[in-house]
């Protein structure tokens, strides 16, 4: 195995995957080190799924520039990567004067940022577009260009395309140490030492800690939790745009310590579900994935204000995410403490003073929208630093995987004649075939867990939440990976589903 690389990417979330894809565009020998077993297991597995237009952020910032550009190119990007994207448009609504003020500011800001297809609309048109909104809407900011994409689908596609162009992915490889060496760095995981000329730190919630493996603390992450609900496809059609709500009672500064919230967002996903959320709750943990009562209560209250008729009986799941909020820190009394407000622009640190080491610290919304832009930014810097030129052999196209549910009867029939496993439906709720699962397992980087299959095919994400198909999925994974069903995990370490002899002990 090769141990010397031009560039080492730490973390295989959306940013790591896109950074790797952009690095190989320059023909750089690239490796991605990920502590978990698969791509998109961090923040990138749980966000609001919105492709923003760029009207939400201040003019002139790198965040705004990237967002506006990314939004314009999103159809092309998704076509290249074979990813489902729906440009459904969005309505930001308000019920009173405070909200209206915010909307008007965003409208003006959007125009200044060069966002097209923005309009302030009155109640009548708003209810025409979204008849199920609560009564009393005062106005809405309509943004034609807003869209939605599944974050893990996008991330997996970028990873596959990066790998197809030569990037290597090493999973279950946690970076524990980084040291300088002549002409670069040595990055150490629990199992190996990687010699590299450049490091791009895309470690999400842990990007501060990874940077501090070698450099003094400067920016640290203080997460806030966002809880979400997912509604079944039975509720499909209840909304048709991304809907967000600017509350009247919002704390002015976002209320970091007081648990201020950001209103409610409703998203009609590309799979026909409705995503409801997120809350915005303080937390002192970086452990992802725990939902809390106070978050649910906030969501329930917001739902009753914004869309009381939302068919919550169709809820099939809840989940949570963590926002990596970056703060400048300074030494005080022997400890590093937060100073000032959360940094709102994207923080892209170069702690070594040059492009040999680049850190994305605290890339929150719209980090998914901008993932390709951020990846390109990092790769351009690295390429300039290393003197690399674009490689003409780079192929940006990743063929879309087969999704039998989206095909006509004749198309399916033809496909099955060639590959019978596309005819065997394993996931009843989403209609995913055995063939699609096998493709997911053999893609590179491929699915190794039950959740890995879910991210790539959607299986197990429907109304029965895998109750029907998970045994079959475990058996397929075991068969294709030539291991025992007992060795198959749900997702992370220790998440075994079937038990072997160990419970006898």
């Amino acid at each position: 195995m090769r141990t010397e690389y031009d560039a080492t990417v730490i973390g295989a979330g959306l940013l790591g995957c896109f950074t790797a894809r952009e690095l190989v565009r320059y023909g750089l020998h690239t490796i991605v080190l990920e502590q978990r077993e698969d791509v998109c297991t961090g923040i990138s597995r749980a966000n609001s799924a919105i492709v923003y237009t760029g009207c939400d952020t201040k003019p002139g910032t790198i965040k705004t520039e990237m967002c506006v550009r990314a939004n314009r190119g999103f159809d092309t990007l998704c076509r290249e990567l074979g990813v489902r994207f729906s440009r459904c448009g969005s309505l930001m609504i308000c019920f009173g004067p405070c909200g209206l003020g915010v909307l008007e500011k965003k409208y003006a800001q959007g125009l200044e940022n060069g966002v097209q297809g923005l309009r302030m609309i009155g109640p009548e048109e708003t209810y025409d577009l979204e008849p199920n909104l609560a009564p009393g809407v005062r106005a809405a900011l309509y943004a034609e260009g807003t869209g939605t994409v599944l974050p893990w689908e996008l991330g997996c596609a970028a990873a596959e395309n990066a790998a197809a162009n030569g990037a290597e992915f090493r999973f279950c490889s946690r970076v524990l140490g980084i040291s300088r060496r002549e002409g670069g760095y040595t990055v150490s995981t629990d199992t190996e030492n990687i010699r590299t000329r450049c490091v791009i730190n895309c470690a999400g919630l842990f990007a501060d800690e990874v940077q501090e493996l070698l450099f003094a603390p400067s920016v640290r992450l203080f997460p806030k939790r966002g809880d979400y609900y997912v509604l079944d496809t039975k509720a499909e059609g209840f909304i048709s745009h991304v809907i967000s709500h600017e509350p009247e009672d919002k704390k002015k500064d976002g209320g970091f310590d007081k648990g201020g919230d950001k209103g409610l967002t409703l998203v009609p996903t590309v799979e026909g579900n409705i995503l409801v959320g997120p809350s915005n709750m303080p937390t002192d943990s970086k452990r992802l994935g725990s939902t809390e009562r106070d978050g649910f209560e906030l969501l329930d209250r917001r739902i009753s204000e914004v869309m009381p008729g939302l068919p919550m009986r169709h809820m099939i799941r809840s989940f949570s995410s963590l926002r990596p909020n970056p703060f400048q820190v300074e030494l005080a009394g022997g400890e590093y403490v937060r100073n000032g407000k959360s940094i709102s622009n994207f923080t892209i640190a170069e702690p070594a003073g040059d492009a040999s080491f680049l850190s994305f610290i605290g890339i929150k919304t719209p980090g998914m929208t901008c993932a390709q832009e951020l990846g390109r930014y990092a790769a351009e810097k690295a390429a300039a630093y290393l003197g690399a030129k674009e490689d003409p052999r780079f192929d940006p196209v990743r063929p879309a995987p087969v999704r039998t549910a989206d095909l006509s009867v004749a198309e399916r029939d033809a496909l099955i004649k060639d590959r019978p496993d596309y005819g065997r439906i394993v996931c009843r709720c989403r209609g995913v075939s055995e063939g699609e699962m096998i493709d997911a397992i053999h893609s590179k980087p491929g699915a190794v867990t039950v959740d890995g299959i879910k991210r790539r095919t959607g299986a197990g994400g429907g109304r029965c939440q895998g109750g029907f198909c998970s045994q079959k999925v475990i058996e397929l994974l075991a068969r294709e990976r030539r291991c025992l069903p007992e060795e198959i995990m749900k997702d992370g370490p220790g998440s075994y589903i079937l038990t072997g002899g160990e419970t006898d002990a």
Partner: protein
Amino acid sequence: MRDIYDLIVIGGGPAGMAAALTAEECGVDRILIIERGERLGGILNQCTHSGFGAAYFGEEMTGTEFAERFRERMSDSGVEVITGTMVLSVSADRTVTVSNKSGCAELHTKAVVLATGCRERPISSLHVTGTRPSGVFEAGAAQKMLNLGGYDIGDDAVVLGSGDVGLVVARCLAQRGRRVIGVFEIRDVCGGSDKNRTECLDFYGIPLYFRHTVTRIHGEGRISGVTVKDLDSGAERYIGCGTLITSLGLVPERELIEPLEAEDGSLPEWIFTCGDARTVHDTVDAVAFEAEKTGAEAAEYITGGTDI
């Protein structure tokens, strides 16, 4: 398999088999049962316990034996059966779209009997907080893994909900030497039958707690515990566990015909339903009796009704 039938029965559990057999007796010619599993029998194939058939066959037997009796009757009949085949959709022009490993096809029929059974409500549909570790199983899925897969699903189990399936799985674990910490039921009555309560819990010394529910799931990889709430005192306590079995209620599986339902919930005259897909039944005997009636009704519609 041809592509035109008089009657297509979706689902080859006891309901589907009983409906098809009766329809044939009533003179319907071209009948097809479509089953997604590899064999007929439905949920009965995983019910290795006894307690089936007393009312219908006049003797008590296991679920698998009950299924076997019906399979024998099927092989003596002229009903066509296709297994390993999923029905993908049923459309208003009486077309049934199916997929299996030889292809994807549209079949035409005069009538449809929906006998697709039911599914369990997953815990993720409740407002339970905490993490989403492995080791959480719906009772039916657990039963299938244990009885059909021959797998071991873990020890130190908490059972949430006292439906029959949950009780039967509690016993199944106890019989394998696994510890079942207790069954927690939110209401003040047992969801399952008295017989199951005695045979599955009392006999194995498994406690049943009424007016208790699980409010939180703990654990990073595999589940490590649950928070249990006593609804009367409001007190919450942590209980360490290695497995959580949920038995939160069954929901008829009717998604195939929902798009054809009118505003008032009524169905086109050519669609019939029976078994757990119609309403969830306590006993398979009741399912069989009901399905026979449904089969006769469908036959009357087909033979006496207007030709298409």
